């Protein structure tokens, strides 16, 4: 965009140096040809990415929607069942539980990382220039670059019966509450949530910190002159200015919670006794163990709509806040 604008001023300036009408016409034609050429270049640049997007994103979505109307085991000929698979979803009692679990995970995947992210970002901003800030930023962001599978395996060790978490609890005299955190019906889902919070916290913190650096320092100065304390500064200036960043954090993490699969798959596989079963895992079991590709696709489509239904209002909230 800016490149184009630059070129036009370039052309305009040359126009002034060549007032001759014929030359002007030639120039215009050349300009149009160049624009056309540039259009082709633009297309050539977009096509590879667009092709990948179509083949690996749009086509699978379309196919998933198509499969959801068939009774198909993935191999033999499929038979058309219309909305039958969707009706089956509504009758599945297990599924209701898994959706509730997904919403419970929002607490751990979204609210905790955003709240903690705000707090840490506010603290780190205070010593923005010192080395501690760089070090702590890097350390806190690290979980984000660790593959989820590795994070899941590491946390299953930490949370196991003789893992570090229980060792620490025993050392500080809390031996009575130690347990196999991922194998206990009451603590398995929160334990999975903690893993997710640990992974997503760094992302939120970095996003929020970046947002804070954009805030005009004079606002803080003015507030301080008016006698505002640190709390007042945070709630009256920092938080409102970060509305968009918070919106992005919430969007990303809510999607991560509702569509969670990898962390759960690695740490509990939905156990014990379906206590951590989530829709993503249910889709996987339906497709690859029960070989009901149609039902699995229907659930995938339903999950996509559910995610959109939750995330889209968040966007609108964001936009009205902007205007």
């Amino acid at each position, binding site marked *: 965009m800016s490149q184009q604008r630059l070129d036009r001023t370039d052309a305009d300036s040359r126009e002034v140096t060549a007032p001759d009408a014929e030359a002007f016409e030639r120039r215009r034609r050349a300009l149009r040809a160049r624009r056309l050429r540039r259009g082709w270049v633009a297309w050539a640049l977009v096509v590879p990415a667009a092709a990948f997007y179509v083949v690996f994103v749009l*086509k699978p979505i*379309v*196919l998933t929607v*198509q*499969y959801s109307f*068939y009774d*198909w*085991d*993935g*191999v*033999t*000929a*499929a*038979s*058309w069942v219309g909305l039958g698979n969707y009706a089956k979803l509504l009758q599945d009692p297990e599924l209701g539980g898994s959706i509730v679990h997904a919403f419970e995970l929002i607490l751990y995947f979204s609210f905790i990382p955003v709240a903690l992210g705000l707090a840490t970002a506010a603290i780190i901003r205070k010593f923005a220039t010192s080395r501690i800030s760089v070090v702590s930023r890097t350390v806190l962001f690290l979980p984000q670059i660790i593959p989820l599978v590795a994070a899941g395996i590491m946390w299953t060790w930490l949370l*196991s*019966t003789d893992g570090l978490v229980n060792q620490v609890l025993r050392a500080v005299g809390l031996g009575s509450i130690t*347990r*196999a*955190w*991922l*194998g*206990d*019906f009451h603590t398995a889902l929160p334990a999975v949530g903690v893993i997710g919070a640990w992974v997503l916290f760094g992302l939120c913190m970095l996003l929020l910190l970046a947002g804070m650096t954009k805030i005009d320092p004079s606002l803080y100065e003015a507030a301080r002159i008016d006698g505002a304390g640190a709390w007042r500064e945070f709630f009256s200036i920092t938080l409102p200015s970060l509305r968009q960043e918070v919106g992005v954090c919430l969007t990303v993490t809510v999607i991560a919670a509702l569509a969670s699969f990898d962390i759960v798959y690695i740490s*509990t*596989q*939905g*156990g*014990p*006794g*379906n206590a951590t079963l989530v829709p993503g895992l249910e889709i996987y*079991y339906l497709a*690859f*163990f*029960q*070989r*009901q*590709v149609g039902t699995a696709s229907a659930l995938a489509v339903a999950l996509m709509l559910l995610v959109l239904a939750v995330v889209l209002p968040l966007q609108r909230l964001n936009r009205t806040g902007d205007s």
Partner: protein
Amino acid sequence: MTATACSAPGGDNNNAANTQGSTSTSTAGGQPTCGTAPVKLKMYIETGFPLPKDLSDEFTKQYPNVTFDVREDQFAVITQNAPRVLVDDPPDLMRLPQVSELAKDNLLLNLDPYATAFGWDKWPQSQLEQMRVNADGSRGDGPLYAMGLNFSMTGVFYNKKLAQQIGMTAAPTTLAELDQDLQKAKDAGIVGIAQFNGGATGGLAFPLQNLMAAYGDPAPINDWIFQKKGASIDTPTNLQAAEHLDKWIKAGYFAKDINSFDYATMMSRFIGGKSLFIFDGDWESGNLDKQMAGNAGFFIMPPAQAGGKQAAMSAPLTYGISAKAANPDCAAFFLNWVATNDKARTIAVQVGGSHPMGPADAFMPPVEANTVTAQTLDAGAKIGKDNGAMDFIANATGAIYAKSWTPNLQKMVAGQQTPQGLLTAVQKDYESEIGG
């Protein structure tokens, strides 16, 4: 792309089915062979188990014109990919999960012609019945769709040092004696059974099925696993078994955290001396003879009544040939060689730890006395005599283990499921899966 997107998915492989009998048939005396021209057998095996590789290496040594192109995956991955791989990238030999759906979908080669040609039909038929699938998908009879590299046995392994500590001098001969040993272990502060039961693999299915066989006849259990019409897991003797298991749970004979750990953790705890018993199979015999030399023992689950018949889960290590395989004759020849060649049978025992397939009077390699391997091989003979071989209740359908046995057994451990509730729930899931 639009054309394929608008037509119904699947069904592209149906014409490939039943095209048995191959393009490159080379026969010697009526039996298919690998011929003399270079052959590359495509083999898809389970990673972590050296047996198929050792067998294929030995085979190449004896038949230098045959080489192997081996692909390895974890069993869970093989389970997920099996149908697609058999169609899209058909292997000549492939480690198979539950065969009934694959056979029903015409993805596997019917091995009956080979069984006749090689004389497999003259072997003890209990070895093969799990791999026979009827047109309706029920197992137990019908055409043969797979072959074993050997067949495994399950039972109870025990730690000899810990057994000595609690005064257990001999393997229990009745269920009551086993109960007493468990109680003695508990009194001595020793974990009775650190059985894996976490994630999607409910290992309590092992003791449960052993208890089922201790109380009742294995035949109806097999009928249920083979999807015979009208079969039910919810029987009076199975209820007794589930109640007995519940009694063990409530008595604290299992490790407290069994719902949180997997198979590998169980093995490391048992080898590390943190569990008196584990319910497991003889595929670990070789491993235990190495890592717990002289300290591990094995017995088949004792019967409820003294002198009663004994049964055990026993299953062939199934390998099948894709219906679209390029070299089916050579693959079948390899499978026959594994069961009948002395060198191959030695590898099956020494590397695989399990009993080789084949005729009852076939060559058996010498095994050092007092090893777990010797004990499990003896146990295999006893099971054969009692006609007590069962398939595993986890193999009844594709999802029954992960989606029904496991969550319900985990709930039972947490006191959230009753023995009757367990059987009712599993039977219901079983019926809905077979019906649907």
